[in-house]
């Protein structure tokens, strides 16, 4: 199947007084219709900027300096704002961590949802209202007719996120980018939102990019996973294979540092040091200073190398012995 989205060698850099911050630095991936891609990384790894770059939402002092983003074959990088506006919300939608970033606090839910519909389609007010109502019902909001007339502050955090998801899916987009949408929510509410997004995307065939720092959420949700470190994807592949037999030492370190992987009370495996500042990345492999396998070769930035049909990593010394033995 032809991919919905193809990202090639995308670079989004921020030009600040003290230098250039390479937030996204040569990222390539694609995603098929209906596929769920988990994009995993720690703070400052560039995962949010990558999501924003796909939508053309990188603001000065940042800009996309190189690369291409194609939605079903159509190039989005370098297109004028009016054209991008036509895509956003209709063909590519987004859900953010904080639903109050999506919702206008001084407008009622119906005003916002109807506006979102009529911005892209010529339909009458009654039709738009009915669609907004159905969308709220679809995300499991009880008595949607009354709730349409409520303001965002009258909803709980989980309910607000449901409204944000309902708005994102109004136009049955081909791609939904969800940036940490459950991070601020409680465990039982997070589970509800995961179930909802999983069901809605499967139903409408929407491809989903789920950006998170939480490996466990991705393990239950995604088909494929891409792990970001210092602006680059260091490993990608099917989620089961990557979590069972990580190739990149960073992926392995992340998985090993999760408490539930250990016997109770045992010392957790830890990655020494801390993530580099994106403004001062080391030459060569950015993970080398923290990597147990680093040697002289790592002073040169590793290229992406493929393993098997679906996996790839950016490392001179991947844990390939595990992969071939398995």
């Amino acid at each position: 199947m032809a991919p919905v989205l193809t990202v090639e060698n995308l670079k989004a850099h921020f030009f600040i007084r003290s230098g250039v911050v390479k937030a996204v630095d040569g990222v390539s991936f694609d995603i098929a219709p209906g596929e769920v891609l988990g994009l995993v990384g720690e703070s400052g790894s560039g995962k949010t900027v990558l999501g924003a770059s796909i939508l053309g939402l990188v603001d000065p002092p940042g800009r996309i300096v190189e690369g291409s983003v194609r939605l079903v074959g159509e190039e989005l990088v370098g297109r004028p704002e009016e054209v991008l506006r036509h895509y956003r919300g209709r063909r590519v939608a987004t859900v953010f961590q904080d639903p109050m970033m999506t919702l206008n606090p001084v407008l009622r839910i119906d005003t916002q949802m109807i506006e979102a519909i009529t911005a892209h389609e010529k339909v009458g007010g009654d039709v738009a209202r009915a669609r907004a109502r159905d969308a709220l019902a679809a995300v499991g909001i009880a008595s949607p007719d009354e709730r349409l007339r409520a303001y965002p502050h009258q909803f709980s955090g989980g309910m607000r996120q449901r409204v944000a998801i309902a708005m994102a899916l109004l136009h049955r987009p081909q791609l939904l980018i969800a940036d940490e949408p459950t991070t601020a929510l409680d465990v039982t509410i997070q589970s509800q939102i995961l179930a909802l997004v999983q069901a809605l995307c499967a139903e409408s065939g929407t491809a989903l990019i789920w950006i998170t720092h939480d490996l466990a959420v991705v393990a239950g949700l995604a088909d494929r996973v891409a792990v970001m470190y210092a602006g680059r994807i260091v490993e990608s592949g099917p989620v089961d294979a990557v979590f069972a037999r990580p190739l990149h030492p960073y992926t392995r370190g992340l998985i090993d540092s999760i408490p539930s992987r250990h016997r109770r009370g045992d010392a957790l495996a830890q990655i020494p040091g801390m993530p580099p500042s994106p403004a001062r990345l080391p030459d060569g492999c950015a993970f080398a200073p923290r990597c147990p396998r680093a040697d002289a070769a790592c002073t040169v930035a590793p290229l992406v190398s493929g393993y098997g049909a679906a996996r790839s990593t950016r490392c001179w010394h991947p844990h390939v012995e595990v992969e071939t033995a398995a």
Partner: protein
Amino acid sequence: MSAPIIAVDNVSRTFVQPLDVAARLANLFGAGMREAVVTAVDHVDFSVRRGEVVGLVGESGCGKSTLGRIVAGLLPPSAGEVRFHGRPIRELADKPARDGMLKVQMIFQDPAAALNPRMQVKDIVGEAPVVHGIVSRAGIAAHVDALLARVGLDPGYKTRYPHQFSGGQRARIGIARALAVEPEFLVCDESVAALDVSIQAQVLNLFMQLRRDLGLTYLFISHDLGVIEHLSDRVVVMYLGRVIEMASTADLFRQPNHPYAQALLANVPRLATAKRRFEPVKGEIPSPLAPPPGCHFHPRCPFVMPRCRVETPALKEIAPGRRSACHLNDEPGRS
């Protein structure tokens, strides 16, 4: 079994939002407006033995942070008593008791908010032990160096300010400050929640190392069940101000008794390799301002019975060392 280091004895805490002028005026004309009362902690009873790590879990608004503050002596309970080595901590007037309370320290969630941004690290860590006469002014530099080294920070950084450190390092400064007065008992309120996975592992390892080296006892508050399962010997589960289950970590994670504990554990995302369908518990967490009558969990409970809507279940012993507050345990045919 050793004597409890901390005993929480039937503790409750309510917060009252007093009426504003307009509401008081309206009441003069018979509007009948009432003050909003939140019962954040509702008759909680538990103890922590020396050397033990007790995990306190629950979702937003369940009162776990309020309980942590009461245990740390930062907040007086509205009813009930907290005892440290058998002595009620509300007797703070005399100096020996106050010195005793130094033995209970708290580590907060957001190290950026808990550290004074205008103080150097050496003063943040070194102020309390000098004030309380634990270390002489002459000996403070060596004391601070030793503390920073113990939590894995370079003592050479001690003249820096909090903003010059990363999140993980700030967490370590918060720990060093708590250790500076030589506590026996630490209340850790979501102390690793703000950290990235790789940094979180470093700080959790530090907590375990300190427990071994210094013989510390912890009350570890977290919403992250993976962290709780890893660190704790026993777990206390709270829902809307009440303790609903209390058990050893192994028992709770193998077979939770209370339906809420079951739902909570089933909903924890795990790194299990199989993709799964999420089967969430229905409903929202009710507002603590108007909790449901009877068992607080009944509107969301899959096993709800008529009795649950009216009668609050007591926290009863269901097995040795294990307590649960659920009417189902009284039903025949269920052990």
